[in-house]
């Protein structure tokens, strides 16, 4: 396995998922500390995890579990104090806000991502059209972000993230600000896009049921310090629904585990 240290913004070897040997993401003994010496807090304490190529991995945790820190490390926006982070290929990151550039049209946002990813000018238009079609926003390319609904903006953000030729998609509560009906439909959408592209997904959420609905695996993080305290494999066949009884009962189990963690802080 040639685990490449992720250098931010630079495309690393991008082999198709099938040929990857070893994990797509490997985090080993990573610690990240915030605050001054003496009164510092551990955002992450000796955290270790692995994600297989093409896996949909969900992380759930209460506030202070260091999820943003972890995603920043995976995205190469930050470096760990100790331990190693290795990611095969390039990452892209989606936030709770779409974070689309308001001065650009939908197509302009995607084009910029393509440009920064080094896609030659001649290919950008067709590529952007493909991506728009993929998130079912064909014909919306000329709109400005403010003209779209929250759900549509998140789909543009997804298209923009996919434009980066990334092999790992990091999602930081991407549907947290959406209404329930939209969120439900976007669960189907992200699942479809994931299956079509074979991309590796790391999906952070506070919503346990969402994690079970989407994930191949759900990791439970503790808070302050952030650590992986438990792991649940989700073997429920797809397509799943949020209201499937199996989804429900596994969510119950994970929620209990999460509450146990939260109680620790109240004692």
């Amino acid at each position, binding site marked *: 396995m040639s685990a490449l240290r992720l250098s*931010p913004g630079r495309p690393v070897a991008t082999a*198709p998922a099938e040929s990857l040997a070893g994990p797509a993401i490997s985090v080993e003994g990573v610690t990240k500390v915030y605050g001054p010496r003496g009164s510092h807090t551990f955002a992450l304490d000796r955290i270790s995890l692995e994600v297989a190529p093409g896996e949909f991995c969900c992380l759930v945790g209460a506030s202070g579990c260091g999820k943003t820190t972890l995603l920043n490390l995976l995205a190469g926006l930050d470096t760990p104090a100790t331990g190693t982070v290795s990611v095969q290929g390039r990452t892209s990151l989606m936030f709770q806000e779409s974070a689309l550039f308001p001065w650009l049209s939908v197509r302009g946002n995607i084009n910029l991502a393509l440009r920064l990813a080094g896609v030659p000018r001649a290919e950008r238009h067709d590529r952007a059209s493909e991506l728009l*079609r993929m998130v079912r926003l064909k014909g919306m390319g000329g709109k400005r972000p403010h*003209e779209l609904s929250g759900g549509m903006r998140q789909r543009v953000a997804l298209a923009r993230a996919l434009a980066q030729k990334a092999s790992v998609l990091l999602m930081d509560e991407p549907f947290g600000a959406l209404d329930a009906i939209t969120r439900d439909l976007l669960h189907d959408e992200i699942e479809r896009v994931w299956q079509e*592209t074979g991309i590796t997904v790391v999906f952070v959420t506070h919503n346990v049921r969402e994690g079970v609905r989407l994930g191949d695996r759900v990791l439970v993080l503790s808070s302050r310090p952030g650590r992986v305290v438990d792991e649940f494999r989700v073997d429920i066949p797809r397509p799943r629904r949020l209201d499937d009884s199996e989804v429900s009962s596994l969510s119950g189990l994970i929620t209990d585990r999460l509450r146990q963690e939260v109680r620790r802080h109240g004692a």
Partner: protein
Amino acid sequence: MALEIQDPPRTDHEAEIAGLDALDIPIAPAKGRFSKTWEGLWPKLAAIALFFGGWQLITWLELKPSWVLPGPIAVLGEFWKLAWEGTPQTPHILLHATANTLQRAAIGYAISVVVGVVIGLAVARSRVLRAAVGSMITGLQTMPTIAWLPLAVLLFQLSETAITFVVILGAAPAIANGVISGVDHIPPVLLRAGRVLGARGLSNYRFVVLPAAFPGLVAGLKQGWAFCWRSLMAGELIVIIAAKPSLGVGLQYAGSLPTPKG
């Protein structure tokens, strides 16, 4: 990884997404170009009419004698006459003066924009520079132009350079301040998105920071233009260059005559 993207299959799900999109898009009443233009235009026209109407009304009331405060018709007529006045060497002095002044304004403003944007960006993005000169920029901005003139004349004598110098000192700090506040008000998530997309160094400024700071930049540019114009008038009132008519010189000359009509 190369993504193989096919047309998604047509399903109920597609119809659901399309339906939700259709429901989500706000229904805005379509307006014609004419009604849009008119909506923006009529308040301006009304304001101009009100101004001249009020002025005329005051002259009719004769609160002040007409040689102190003439009416709009008399002033506009005088202006028209003045526009055609000139000497055999320079016909249409007013036209020449306006051209000279506008040229100085354009050159001074252009330099101010470059200087202001560069300084503004540097100060906004560097903590050390901000601590060092951040408040000084605001200080410079509040400095009356007239106070710079002795120094300008000392350094550059009565020359174009002296005028340009005070124009830049007037306008550049305002523009720099606009850029700084524009950069400060960029939502952090946009900067983060830029980093995630791989915008670094120069491309970060070009594709993310500058466009995101644009509202502040425009505010700074407007203020800069105002300061540029004020500094220019102050400069032209003092720095009078022979055989080079300008609006400032005209003002100076007209101010010394006994009639407000010039």
